[in-house]
């Protein structure tokens, strides 16, 4: 190749990727990102670092390189500047494009196929999420490990040098830190040997890799057991082929296609049939000619998708990011061969490719733009609150006008606690504008009760902000007028003993606040609104540490307005504990009730002069 052609050959795919996902570079943090960003605040020594990197977290996952390590490293240098994180994701993807091109060339010896494969993969709408959301970097990094390991395996198959084999092995082992799907790599390599290379010795060389995958599977299962219920539960049932067909369709026709304005359903179905049919027919036709290379890439699709098929209730198009490169490679080889075939075949193949791009490219651009726009609101909110805290030290921040979008992409993931900004609450009026979402934190965790908000405003302990078009706007005066014009709501029926804005509901017997909870001495009292229905119960949340139980079990007597409710026994440490108790009928409908909590014994921690009973957080009637 001439230097200019060679440069274009390598540069066009990343430039196309940059053009398509440009907004993805500017996307800010959102949703799960805040959980990873918070890790840096939890690390104070080497043990904490190891825990942060390797302890199973969300949905039982252990992904030290692609999630925890990635966020920890970049946060330590760049904190809340998202651009470097995004640049790194793009750079990794550029490497993936080069590796895929290299892989297709090695297998097909076709420069045109090697050029087209990364372009088709880039255009696939399954890359929208990985190219827009830093928390899904795991897909990009896992693709890198799979492609890199397989490239060295191909070198080993060609040259027989053990160095290549061991580099492959090392990359494979490291790949487990990116995404669990890495476990299928030996099956990909085996598919290559069985379908293309066919050397038994080469197949045997994969035995240690299979053994490692089995070990990883059991190790992972032991430390991060699968969930029995919820969206991440595995289902091995007749839904498996249905899920596979859904993913197969999304590989060609974007999941978002039915939402595109003016779309014609029949056109989508016809395009899907034509594209999927062409890929299958070409694969079978080549297999009959004893060329199993397309079959190998189809295996790539199936093997990398297989672990995700049992997730019946959590089907996401971005799970196709790695499998889709198999189909893109088949299509690229098909296009390459069609260009050397009759004019009719060439034109019809190029027409199919054009349809694929017409369907996917607009979705990719609008998808990444959606993430960008959503993250702009999150950025305005989170950095705005950070600025508000600087302007009003010592005051709590109350947020009003938070809609569903900001709640699900930011608030419900506790961004302020994660970034070390305490005392940020949702104003009570948000309750009506936010719908609760299963799987997200309960809205009540963030809401300040109306009565507490009024008290905080009267005492000038709070500043109220609402998200504006480009900035957070201070609306304290207007909000105060609006809230105080309403009739007093009565005492709240949910008291957070650990919230300083609700200190006026905390009676005698309590010590000073400590990071979201409060210790009581032998006896503590709390005031709140009474139950409104006979069926309502009182829920207590607190902490009973092991130090309290050194002299044996303790008992907590709960009394409401002088009526004994329950005697709770603690024989094991519970941090936290939750208890739900039935309320006495005498307090039904009362505007103000007194909850009395009394333990039969206190303890004195070493170096602490206080006599401690139990620590409490939220006390709620529901």
């Amino acid at each position, binding site marked *: 190749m001439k230097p200019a052609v*060679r440069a274009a050959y*390598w540069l066009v795919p990343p430039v196309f990727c940059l053009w398509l996902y440009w907004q993805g570079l500017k996307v800010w943090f959102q949703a799960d990102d805040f959980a990873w960003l918070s890790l840096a605040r939890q690390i104070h020594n080497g043990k904490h670092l190891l825990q942060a990197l390797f302890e199973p977290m969300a949905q039982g996952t252990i992904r030290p390189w692609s999630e925890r390590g990635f966020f920890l490293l970049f946060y330590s*240098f*760049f*904190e*809340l*500047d*998202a*651009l*470097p994180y995004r*640049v*790194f994701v793009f*750079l990794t993807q*550029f*490497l993936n494009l*080069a590796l895929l091109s290299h892989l297709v060339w090695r297998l097909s010896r076709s420069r045109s196929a090697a050029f087209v494969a990364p372009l088709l993969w880039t255009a696939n709408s399954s890359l929208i999420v990985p190219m827009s959301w830093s928390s899904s970097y795991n897909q990009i990094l896992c693709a890198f490990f799979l492609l890199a390991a397989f490239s060295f395996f191909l070198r080993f198959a060609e040259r027989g040098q053990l160095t290549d084999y061991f580099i492959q092995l090392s990359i494979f082992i490291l790949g487990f830190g990116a995404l669990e799907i890495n476990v299928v790599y030996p099956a990909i390599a085996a598919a290559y040997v069985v379908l293309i290379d066919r050397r038994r010795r080469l197949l045997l060389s994969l035995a240690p890799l299979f053994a490692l995958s089995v070990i990883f599977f059991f190790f992972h299962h032991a430390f991060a057991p699968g969930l029995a219920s919820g969206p991440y539960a595995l289902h091995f049932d007749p839904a498996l082929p249905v899920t596979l067909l859904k993913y197969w369709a999304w590989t060609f026709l974007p999941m978002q296609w039915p939402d595109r304005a003016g779309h014609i359903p029949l056109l989508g179905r016809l395009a899907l049939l034509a594209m999927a049919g062409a890929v299958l027919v070409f694969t079978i036709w080549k297999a009959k000619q004893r060329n199993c290379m397309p079959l190998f890439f189809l295996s790539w699709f199936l093997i990398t998708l297989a672990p995700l098929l049992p997730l019946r209730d959590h089907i996401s198009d971005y799970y196709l990011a790695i499998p889709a490169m198999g189909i893109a490679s088949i299509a690229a080889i098909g296009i390459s061969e069609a260009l050397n075939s009759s004019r009719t075949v060439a034109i019809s193949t190029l027409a199919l490719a054009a349809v694929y791009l017409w369907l996917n490219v607009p979705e990719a651009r609008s998808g990444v733009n959606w993430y960008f726009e959503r993250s702009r609101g999150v*950025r*305005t909110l989170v*950095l*705005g609150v*950070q*600025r*508000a805290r600087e*302007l009003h030290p010592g005051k709590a921040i109350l947020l009003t006008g938070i809609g569903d979008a900001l709640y699900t992409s930011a608030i419900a993931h506790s961004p302020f606690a994660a970034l070390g900004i305490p005392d940020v609450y949702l104003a009570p009026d948000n309750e009506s504008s936010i719908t609760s979402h299963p799987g997200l934190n309960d809205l009540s965790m963030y809401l300040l009760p109306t009565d507490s908000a009024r008290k905080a405003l*009267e*005492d*000038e302990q709070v500043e109220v*902000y609402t998200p*504006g078009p480009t*900035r*957070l*706007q*201070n*609306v*304290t*005066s207007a909000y105060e007028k609006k809230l*105080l014009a309403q009739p007093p709501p009565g005492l709240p029926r949910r008291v957070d003993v650990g919230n300083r804005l609700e200190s006026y509901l905390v009676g005698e017997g309590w010590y000073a606040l400590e990071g979201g909870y409060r210790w009581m001495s032998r006896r503590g009292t709390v005031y709140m609104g009474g139950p409104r229905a006979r069926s309502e119960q009182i829920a207590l949340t607190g902490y009973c540490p092991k130090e309290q139980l050194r002299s044996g079990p303790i008992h907590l007597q709960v009394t409401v307005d002088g009526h004994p409710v329950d005697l709770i026994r603690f024989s094991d440490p519970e941090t936290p504990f939750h208890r739900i108790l039935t309320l006495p009928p005498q307090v039904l409908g009362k505007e103000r009730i007194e909850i009395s909590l009394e333990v039969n014994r206190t303890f004195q921690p070493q170096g602490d002069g206080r006599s401690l009973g139990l620590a409490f957080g939220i006390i709620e009637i529901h």
Partner: protein
Amino acid sequence: MAIRFRTVALFIALVAVVCLSDCKSRNRTRVQTDEEPPRMAAVLSMADPRANAQLLSGFYPVEQNAWRWTASKFSVILRTPRGADQKGATLKLKLSVPDSVIQQVKSTGVSAALNGVDLAPESYTQSGEYIYTRDVPARAFAGDSVKIDFALQKFMPPGPVDARELGVVVSMVGLEGK
């Protein structure tokens, strides 16, 4: 192979550029908020620069970002706490009587007046920190804000060391609703 080395070199160079752009990075993580015009507060901390507008007379510049000397008479205007025109409010003046004052004047005292309502004085014969607290009847509150005039019984007149008239050191003044 050469092209791959170049790719890796480019990759490393780009990462280095990103790392070196740290100062710009900090600019990208700072945003501004649209703030309300300063509101009249019911409680003023002397450390808060926004308190200046409500300190009408008799206060000297803030010192150590925490407190101010007063003259023999000093006045503030405070927001009327909600419901004070019906239930009254509590006036609190957090002050310190320095050694130098007590040594010179032996004893001093503070009194306050709001809208023609005089509040009982309090005397101090020792140096130290005090909170002058008085219940203010509802009749003292007629509007959204109220002017409070404080007066000291004794004070240090201007002298060769300090040309100012010095009374007490104040760190906070405020009205709390009942």
